């Protein structure tokens, strides 16, 4: 096992990775920008290095600076967390070149899965069902219109390099598609440096269900069941749970086996997630592969008892997988809500100084955050300030415990989406498991806020 690991991230995920490292007796190295000097991940780590100005391009995305810090601190491995450089093949490659272990898959696998078009082709070859659509780049609105005509409307226009819902657009007819094409292409080029677009058939009322995988460097691979993450705003997840209230055992097993088949086919090693769209008839389609730790990994940890970060470290250190498929437990129900610094009605960001911050504690409650009273949430990074997770023997108990914890959760000084989270968890449709990705647009009624 490693003796020192650098965490190339910030916020709650840096804190969470540090926690497992400490438990395993691994020294930790934090990096931080000028905006994060007071952050919890800086004070918790054994060493911390200032790497630049607040903007991510001048700090957390500065590959050479981070490599330099890793060498200075003599870190043997780098944990990238999620977001930022976690799915950047150039960063993984630089680590490989410098003899620093990148805690994640190989650079060429990140690159292959990072191109959504290439990932579609690969999954098709691996025998994993994909959403009907095109697996080639569309250069113009004319080409898009031609492809859409063969697939049938409505279609989803997507950016091949995309993520976080940016550059995605539903088009119900040719006029909508033509209108959206250029803007989406430009937006993707601006955000990802790659304006390659493709289209897929738009699946009505889908559920977003993903399979957590662990794979080692010796061809062993297991799935840690599924997470359902259908409750989304702006194509970003808000509530996640495991198990899914929708799947039956047969579909669960089929999806798990398809995900393992995909990972084996590409020679994947480390923790990874295959995201699927599931339609009302329980047909499932490959959506994308996340070649990193997911934000919502705690719900899987809570039902399996497996520390996914610990397994990532073991796999990266060259150890064989410590579990066989039949040893993966599934115990009770876990649910997570993402607490965002944002207006619950408009979903617009709400940066500012947090004057009061207190989270409930309890045997069934897990709280992941790097925020505390008196800190300022800056506009430079993602609006997620915390994750709250509750566990119970069944779904209804988990919902009730999470609701109770949310009612005791206090954040003052900024707006948060807590009113929305309470409304979702209390909603009869949510409680009945009627969770499709259009849930919020269908059920969420703007409320008065302070």
């Amino acid at each position, binding site marked *: 096992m490693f003796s020192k690991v650098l965490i190339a991230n910030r916020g709650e995920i840096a804190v969470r990775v540090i926690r497992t490292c400490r438990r395993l007796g691994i020294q930790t190295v934090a990096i931080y920008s000028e905006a994060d000097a007071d952050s919890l991940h800086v004070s918790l780590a054994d060493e911390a290095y200032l790497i630049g100005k607040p903007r991510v391009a001048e700090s957390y995305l500065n590959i050479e600076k981070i490599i330099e810090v890793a060498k200075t601190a003599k870190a043997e491995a780098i944990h990238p967390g999620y977001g930022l450089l976690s799915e950047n093949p150039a960063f993984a490659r630089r680590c490989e070149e410098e003899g620093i272990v990148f805690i994640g898959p190989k650079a060429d696998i990140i690159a292959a899965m990072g191109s959504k078009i290439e990932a579609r082709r690969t999954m098709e070859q691996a025998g994993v069902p994909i959403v009907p659509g095109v697996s080639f780049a569309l250069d113009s609105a004319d080409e898009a219109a031609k492809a859409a005509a063969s697939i049938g409307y409505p279609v989803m226009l997507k950016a091949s390099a995309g993520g976080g819902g940016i550059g995605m657009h539903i088009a119900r007819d040719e006029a909508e598609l033509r209108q959206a094409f250029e803007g989406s292409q430009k937006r993707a080029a601006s955000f990802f440096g790659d304006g390659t677009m493709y289209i897929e058939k738009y699946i009505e009322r889908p559920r977003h269900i993903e399979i957590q995988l662990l794979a080692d460097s010796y061809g062993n691979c297991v799935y840690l069941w599924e997470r359902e993450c259908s409750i989304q705003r702006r194509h970003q997840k808000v509530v996640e749970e495991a198990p899914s209230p929708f799947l039956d055992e047969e579909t669960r097993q089929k999806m798990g086996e398809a995900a393992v088949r995909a990972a084996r086919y590409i020679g994947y090693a480390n923790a990874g997630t295959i995201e699927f769209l599931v339609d009302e008839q329980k047909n499932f389609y490959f959506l994308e592969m996340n070649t990193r730790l997911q934000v919502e990994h705690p719900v899987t940890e809570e039902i399996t008892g497996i520390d996914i970060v610990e397994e990532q470290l073991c796999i990266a250190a060259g150890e064989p997988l410590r579990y066989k498929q039949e040893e993966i437990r599934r115990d009770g129900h876990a649910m997570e809500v993402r607490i965002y610094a*944002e207006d619950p009605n408009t979903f617009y*960001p709400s*940066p500012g100084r947090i004057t009061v911050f207190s989270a409930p504690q309890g045997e069934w409650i897990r709280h992941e955050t790097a925020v505390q009273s008196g800190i300022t949430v*800056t*506009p430079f990074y*993602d609006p997620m300030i915390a994750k709250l997770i509750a566990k119970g023997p069944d779904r209804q108990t988990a919902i009730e415990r999470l609701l109770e914890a949310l009612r005791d959760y206090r954040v003052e000084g900024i707006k948060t989406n807590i009113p929305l989270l309470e409304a979702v968890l209390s909603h009869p449709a949510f409680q009945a498991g009627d969770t499709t990705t259009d849930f919020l647009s269908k059920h969420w009624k703007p409320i008065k806020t302070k």
Partner: protein
Amino acid sequence: MNQIIATMAGSVWKIVVAVGDRVEEGQDVVILESMKMEIPIAAETSGVVKHIHVQEGDFVNEGDVLVEIE
């Protein structure tokens, strides 16, 4: 003279008007980026763009004047 101000802290991602342009009430003039989200800032009244106070890439605080229209 009407000032269009930033409704939240963030970076100026795009300026979609030029000095001398005629803008209508509700039309986007500047797009800010904050917390990885694009936030369009619209003109509150119709008029002609008199002055643009910011450049793309600038960091602005809530309340900063972005554009003046007349």
